[in-house]
């Protein structure tokens, strides 16, 4: 089961009983499995920056441990952690966006004309070069656009959920996604040249 599917299915898997149930096993039982997966979740989403991925991984796992709430089933632990991780990631993007606004970076334009941009080619994402290019392209996007694409496509959320995560209306999320897709395609082509 992919990460995206696990995250997307989180509610159905865990339900409400997770919130007050005790862990079926202690942290040691899931730590070794969860650490590389959570770390591997963050790393491509933060431009491959190790320090940031470590920080977010640490925040996620410590938040999970300290929350005192665990899923009742061991199979739900990893999706539950991914849920926390995604919120941490969105917080990180929000912070990044605030910093841009506050400290001299150009504000994201509210509206841009989305000119025609050729769709992405079929990507062999098992190939290192393709993965690196996608990660680098994501990293070039403004934080809000990046957070929209990550939530919608990498994490597999539907548009209403993406909108809720971003704190905007569904219509605004659709517009943001449209701009983000165009921007991603343009950056991808610029990074990849004619190869795309």
């Amino acid at each position, binding site marked *: 089961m992919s990460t995206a599917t696990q995250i997307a299915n989180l*509610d159905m898997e865990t339900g409400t009983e997770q919130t007050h149930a005790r862990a079926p096993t202690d942290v040691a039982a899931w730590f070794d499995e969860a650490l*590389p997966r959570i770390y*591997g979740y963050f790393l491509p989403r933060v431009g491959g920056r190790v320090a940031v991925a470590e920080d977010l991984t*640490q925040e996620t796992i410590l938040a999970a441990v300290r929350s005192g709430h665990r899923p009742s089933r061991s199979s739900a632990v990893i999706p539950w952690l991914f849920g*926390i991780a995604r919120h941490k990631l969105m*917080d990180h993007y929000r912070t990044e966006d605030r910093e841009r606004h506050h400290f001299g970076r150009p*504000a994201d334009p509210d509206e841009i004309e989305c000119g025609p941009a050729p769709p992405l080619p*079929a990507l062999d*994402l098992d190939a290192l070069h393709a993965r690196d290019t996608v990660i680098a392209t994501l990293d070039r996007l403004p934080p809000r656009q990046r957070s929209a694409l990550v939530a919608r496509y990498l994490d597999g959320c539907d548009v209403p959920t993406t909108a809720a995560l971003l704190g905007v209306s569904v219509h605004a999320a659709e517009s943001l996604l449209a701009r983000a897709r165009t921007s991603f395609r343009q950056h991808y082509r610029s990074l990849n040249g004619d190869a795309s």
Partner: protein
Amino acid sequence: MSRISRNHRDPAYERDFRQLAGALDRPIAPAPEFAESLRRQIAGSEPTSTPKHRPATTMVIARESPVLMLADRRRRHIGFSILEIAAALLLISALALSAYIININAVGGPTGPDAGNGPGQLSRAIASPVRDASTERMTAGINWGGDKGRSQYYGSDAIDPSKPPVDLQIGDERTTTVGPGLFVGDSWYGWTVRAGADAFLRVNVATGETVWEQEYRTWGTLGSNGQRIFAFLIDASDTPTPVPVAISMTTGEIAWRGPALHPFAISITASNEGTFYLDGGTPPPAIETYAIDLTREEHGPVVAGETVYFTDGKATTVALGIDDGAERWRDDRSDDFPADFGYVDEITFPRTGTIVANERYVFVRLPDNSIVSLDPATGREIARSFRGGFVDSTRSILGMSLRGDRLVVLTISSFVSSDGSTVGNAAISVLDAGSLEVLVTSDFVEGGAGFDMVVTDSSAFLLTIGEQDVWELIEVDLTTGSLSEPFGTGLLVESIRLSGTGDTLIAAMSSGTVLYFSMETHELLDRHRVQRGQTIALVGGPMPIEDGRPIAVWKVGPNAPVPETPPATPIP
């Protein structure tokens, strides 16, 4: 607009993105040092593993058969001791780990040949090579010297980096704003907004307890003479009128109020054309804009002897008696200010008054980028630097520092190019405080435009932000103007504040990392890391307290609470 609507409603238009679902996610083992560090933290954090959740030792003993206990006293005695010792060790370990986590961690470990490369760098050695700071975190923004920018704090107390810093959390999740505070004696004084209500606080550093709390709002930096806190009192309007006040350190009550002064330009928007729009000015929508936070302009209060000085949004300066707030003199420059306050068409930083003073000198930077020297006793103008000298039309004064008979001035050139990238340079000029004659001007620090500055008697340390958002520290020799090799280089990932005391230069990052450098050798002396958990925003410090411990003030971020049930739904 119509094209956006058409595109984003066309399902075929996003099919190429569907291939990304889950495609980048691979389990990746982080560095063993990082994993081990995290494992140790978890051992001290897990609620179910802390001693208070474990059955008491005596209860375990009591479950044994009393008969057995009586029949084999030796075994019972030994068993009790082992359990007791184990429990004690567990308790001690847990407490140690808790303290490790609650306070700022001296995160570290042994340095290795690959220290600083790859995962685990945050967990590695305190005494790692200077360049290890270079990969601190990712790019986020440029510090233009606003609220989280220049602190220019320089104390005389020697800091002891080996002592754990105090992590003083001022705000909570209801706290929306925390202003720059001030440490005096055993307490931190500062303003916050808690749950929508103003709160000016005195917080005991040692205990974290609020000594008193008053419902008013201050603006900008604070000053103190050890008996009172001095501040600008403002209301919550968009263009608040600042009123100098003295605040009792004992009760928080207002001891006196000075005259109302001109409002400040709290926010300034700058376009990529080099045009600035101050409060009330709205840039045309087609122009890409940049926001600049200038809420830490140094308008005072500056305490010197028996006088406290304030300067306002139109560079009008008042000298007030510290005991009664009586106005001793006023230097009114409001007529010098641009007639159209909302529009400044120059590639310079428009500045309201900035003031530095001691008992012999009072210097105010005027809106036209000149510096005026005022007589501390009468307010009479003694000297004035002329524009076009060390500050020509392409430069602007960003900061001043008064060290004895020398006035150290930081100037910068225009700061962004048309494509938004960082350009420009910085320079330090040293002026004779008596004549305002320029004694030396340093070489240009190229490519830097966002600055922090700490000035000692012999050197100025600059935090510069260059292209690619790389920050670095540079020492400027105040005698010769020569620049040192950059040190502490790193990617700018957050706001950084620079301060210093004794021979220690301190760089505090909003992520929670605090770096200590030797001013003498530029060596990275130490590195502490606040165990952030839910605390995310650096709002003050670090500044040393009396026993040499540095203090950082933090607040909990608005998004801190961890959702218990993260919302998610599958792709339709």
